[in-house]
């Protein structure tokens, strides 16, 4: 009897908690709803008070304006190149390094790995002044290269993938070598295919991170043509143009690719992020 009562009480607490959580989960999506619906309104409807909770007429004019009045297509292209090249380079370089740290034996391996990993939590933004001077010296201001390469210096990929390589038995590599396979062949043809899930998680996490990065791209891409989408749409916000619908359309353009990626690859986020935390 008393146990039953206890159980019912327990569930009440749980139900109340979940109702609150559900309420906030939906409320938390409201700004995005407002972003999206505002971008479909015209310049006077968007600031009308009381507001239209649903847009009365749906127009895509703001989107057309963003792409016609601003080099938004160029910005999008820049963002894709910067995110894609950074990510592919991160995967190639960090999988090679992670393989070496996990499976090869060489002098100073542990010391180098510790130094590498110690940098894991240091954001590149704190070194933005010397970093910008390097980019200046390399002649990479206003170039996508200047945005790409500092991103590739991160140790995160090495750290994430080393965990995957560690879980592969050494005997596999030894067997391949016994058959006369070279080190690079073993790495590329035998070991890499096994760590595909790790590569997938790293690809998506890194792509999203670079796509959403702002400060470094803002500093490097100063000319109109070298801006990325994030920097470009943020500049719309600081623009004197009073049409908020137009600004919201720009923000939506930057948000949609990430929403699509999230919906398609939700599993990778759950897994990839958790791996980072677990290993830590």
């Amino acid at each position, binding site marked *: 009897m008393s*146990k039953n009562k206890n159980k019912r009480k327990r569930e009440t607490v749980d139900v109340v908690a979940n109702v609150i959580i559900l309420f906030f989960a939906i409320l938390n999506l409201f700004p995005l709803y407002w972003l999206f619906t505002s971008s479909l309104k015209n310049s006077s409807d968007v600031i009308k*008070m009381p507001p239209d909770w649903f847009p009365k007429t749906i127009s895509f004019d703001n989107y057309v304006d963003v792409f016609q009045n601003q080099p938004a297509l160029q910005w999008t292209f820049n963002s894709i190149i910067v995110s894609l090249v950074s990510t592919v380079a991160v995967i190639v370089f960090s999988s090679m390094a992670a393989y070496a*740290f996990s499976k090869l*034996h060489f002098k100073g391996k542990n010391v180098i790995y510790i130094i590498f990993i110690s940098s894991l939590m240091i954001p590149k933004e704190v070194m933005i002044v010397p970093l910008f001077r390097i980019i200046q010296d390399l002649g990479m201001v206003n170039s996508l290269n200047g945005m790409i390469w500092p991103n590739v210096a991160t140790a995160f990929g090495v750290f994430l993938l080393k965990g995957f390589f560690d879980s592969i038995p050494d005997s596999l590599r030894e067997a391949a070598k016994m058959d006369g396979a070279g080190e690079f062949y073993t790495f590329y043809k035998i070991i890499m295919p096994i760590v595909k899930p790790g590569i997938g998680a790293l690809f998506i996490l890194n792509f999203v991170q670079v796509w959403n990065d702002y400060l470094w791209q803002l500093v490097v891409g100063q000319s109109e043509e070298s801006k990325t989408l994030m920097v470009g749409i943020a500049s719309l916000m600081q623009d004197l143009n009073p049409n908020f619908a137009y600004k919201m359309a720009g923000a939506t353009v930057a948000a949609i690719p990430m929403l699509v990626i999230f919906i398609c690859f*939700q599993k990778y986020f759950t897994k990839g992020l958790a791996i980072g935390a677990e290993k830590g």
Partner: protein
Amino acid sequence: MKFNKHALKENMTGYLFIAPQLILFLVFLVYPIIEGIRLSLYRINYTNEVFVGFENYQKLFQNPVFVKSTLNTVVFVVFIVALTVAFAMFVSAAVFDKNAKYVSFIRGSYYIPVMVSMVVMSMVWSFLLNPANGLIPYIAKQMEMSSVNFLGNPKTVLPVIIFVTFATNVGQAIILYIASMIGVPKELFEAAEVDGASRTTIIFKILIPLVKPTTIYIIIMNIIAVLKIFVVIQLLTGGGPNNASTTLMYFLYNNAFKFNQLGIASAVGVIMFLITLVLSVPQLRAMFKKD
């Protein structure tokens, strides 16, 4: 002799495999740190550099805007991290053992703002909070609040930024907690349930202590993330009103790229670097203990 040759070859292979990553690491991470420390000891006028010792640091601590930036950053770190950990813990503990579709819906709705980025979310919030035609001031007016310019009032600007940053980023912590809580063996809860423990007791006595490594990770990651808070400041307030919401990163950026005070900016960078280094020690120690 033959064995030595083999070892040499193995060494070379190892170095070749790490070479590309190592070179980038040295050029874009190690060198900037050293160069940043050097620059912080110089007064820099375009190409002209004069060694001034710790003058930049002395100037910083006498600069009221820097002091304000530091205080604000500390306030942001304390409140945002506390809110994030508490709320993420609450959500995850209530949700993690429910059916998979519900879990994935909750996780998704809190994580989507993280996905669409701080830039986009700051733009929406800036519109929502706009005193002339934003939705929130409109609702505040309906409720007959006296002041509706929440970002222009030094008393409300910090709480608003704390809330916006928290609401946008809490999804990250929720994903981590849920993954960690799902990994806790069910038998532990069942045993406690048999003993008549309530859900609340189980959560506080068993679940939360067991996910402590995740909590530490979330706290450290979030402290570092909030320490470099920038986007929301630039897009929502520009550090205003009257420097009321300026932060270390915003101060650094302005000194470096607006006021051309590279020595001062480097000194701020060095201070932030040292803080992150100290903060990452417990995490690194835990990582190497496992290896």
